[in-house]
């Protein structure tokens, strides 16, 4: 398949991670905001984890795509592959 799943998936988790950690930073000093999560700023920490995961996936997918693009015997440009017959 020509679309490497890791690219959109990495993008999504990067964005979610960025949003969560930014929100976590913004709400860091609000009193009582994190009482239900035992005083742990879940948004910030888990957001950072997801950010790292998303970036890793994205970069892996990109690297793979570049590898495929640099292979000479791959005529698959713009998906013009003839299948079967």
């Amino acid at each position, binding site marked *: *398949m020509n679309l490497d799943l890791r690219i959109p998936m990495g993008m999504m988790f990067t964005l979610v991670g960025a949003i969560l950690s930014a929100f976590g930073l913004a709400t860091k000093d609000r009193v009582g905001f994190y009482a239900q999560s*035992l005083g742990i700023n879940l*948004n910030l920490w888990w957001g950072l984890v997801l950010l790292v995961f998303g970036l890793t996936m994205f970069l892996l997918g990109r690297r793979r795509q570049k590898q495929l693009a640099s292979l000479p015997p791959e005529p698959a440009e713009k998906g013009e592959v003839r299948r079967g017959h």
Partner: protein
Amino acid sequence: MLNLTSVDWLIMLLYFVFVLGIGFALKRYMKTSKDFFQAGRALPAWICGLAFISANLGAQEVIGMGASGAKYGLETAHFYGIGAIPAMIFVGIFMMPFYYGSKARSVPEFLRMRFDEKTRALNACSFAVMTVFSSGISMYAMARLIQALHVFDGLFRALGWAPEGIFTFSICLSALIVLLYIFLGGLTSAIYNEVLQFFLIIAGFLPLVLIGLRNIGGWSGLKASVPMQYMHEWKGVAHASTNPMGIEIIGLGMGLGFVLGSGYWCTDFLVIQTAMASKNMESARRVPLIAAVPKMLFPFLVIVPGILAIGLPTPHTTTVVRTVNGAIIHETTVVSAQVSEGRGLVPAKINPVTGKAMLTASGEPLLDYDMATPNMLLHFFPTGILGLGLTALLASFMSGMAGNVTAFNTVFTYDLYQSYIHKGGSDRHYMAVGRWATVGGILLSIATAYAAINFNNIMDTLQLVFSFVNAPLFATFLLGMFWKRATGHAAFTGLIAGTATAMLHHGLTLPIEARPGIHGGWIAVLHHYPSDMAQNFWTAIFAFSANFIVTVVVSYCTKARPEAELVGLVHSLTPKPDRAHIVWWKKPEALAVAVLLGAVALNIFFY
């Protein structure tokens, strides 16, 4: 009450955008029906492997396993250790060579190649009906959960819509999204989104388990706060009376492990379709094995939240008296009867007429176990990550539906439409039929979801009928693949005999504490089982045995097919492929041994 802010909505929206975006991005690769129905048979093994378990990781799994964890404790992990892992190893090592190697495009098509037309027709019809109903049930469960959690209440208030529309809105929204991405990208789209959902579930539930464990004082704290038998998977399993589920070892091992587990993981096209989409034989065989690795670890993610929910302290109405600057302040936290009559975070079921908790026969409050996992999310997650948790739940519902829908459109198009309605059409035509079958399948699912509101028993009845049809299946495949003498007439009669036996057994037995009717005993009550799960497992054992015996007997009475026709379909007649060039640790067998050792180690740990 649930209070969602714009961050939660943003995350949910982001997920929907990406789900649809993947569908649109894949649209231009959908050139032939093979691309649409079989993902071009070109996907890498790890993607198919994660989709293999995600297809099963629908609502029933995430909510149901949490509920079961709250009700029975760690014994629920048997559904993984016995019910899934061995079957997944078996299908990867022994059965996949025939599914993938036969070039069949669906499981019913394999039955036609191995047996005959009527066996395929029987299997295709029952399977098509079941997938549509299952996706309808999944839709219904999701809409009910959205209602119970008040996810869209704020949105509806803001827009000035009547709250009665939430059920319809949830159903239409999920149906539309699933429809769009499958219509555009076919099986590839479904598989990609299942993988996305797999990671979302981990992203949403891992922090939940970690923070829940931290609150209760770690693993040892969890052990201390629930009854002793909750934390043992195997202790007490020798006798029905000494374990929470009321099942003895033979019913468990044979019924769950051999018949039900294998029947599902080895024959259900819903999961097999993902393995058949991989790029070559070695990958296809590795798919279920790759899937088994995260599957072993999933009890931590889906069962433990349920046990935690039971173990945490039950909230009660409390009043705290504080003095601030000389003024005395009474802070009262009011908790509804639903919450305070429950256990831990699991609420009691409330009788809507009296407003009091419903009681069981022994006077205990009846608990609404299905709320265990959702309540954990609401209890621990502040806004922000709460949006992520809810998105993970929604994603699991939608991908459960999507797997059913792609299985339906493939079986409908290839096994019913192409075989019996319109033969010899162009490839383009069948692809169009597949797209419209997707629309039809989703419309039928919506109808099922609405039927479930009006008829209280419809879900139980449907699930009962499925169990009758599914229970004997594994015997047919086992004999078909490993015994060259098995014939088409025999397979057909065997399947019917198996289903009939399942119905008969159900009609003659009854779980203790149940009245004759939907739970069994509708012919006469000859035997009482300690629990409905025990009855379930034994129904499956009887159905399997009946199918097995009838198929063997009828095979000997009918004429066998010539051996030349069965090459590639039966184990003993299929030449072993030359695999000397593959390094030993890259072979599926090596992975299988590793998975097996891991599963044994986990079972010892949970003993």
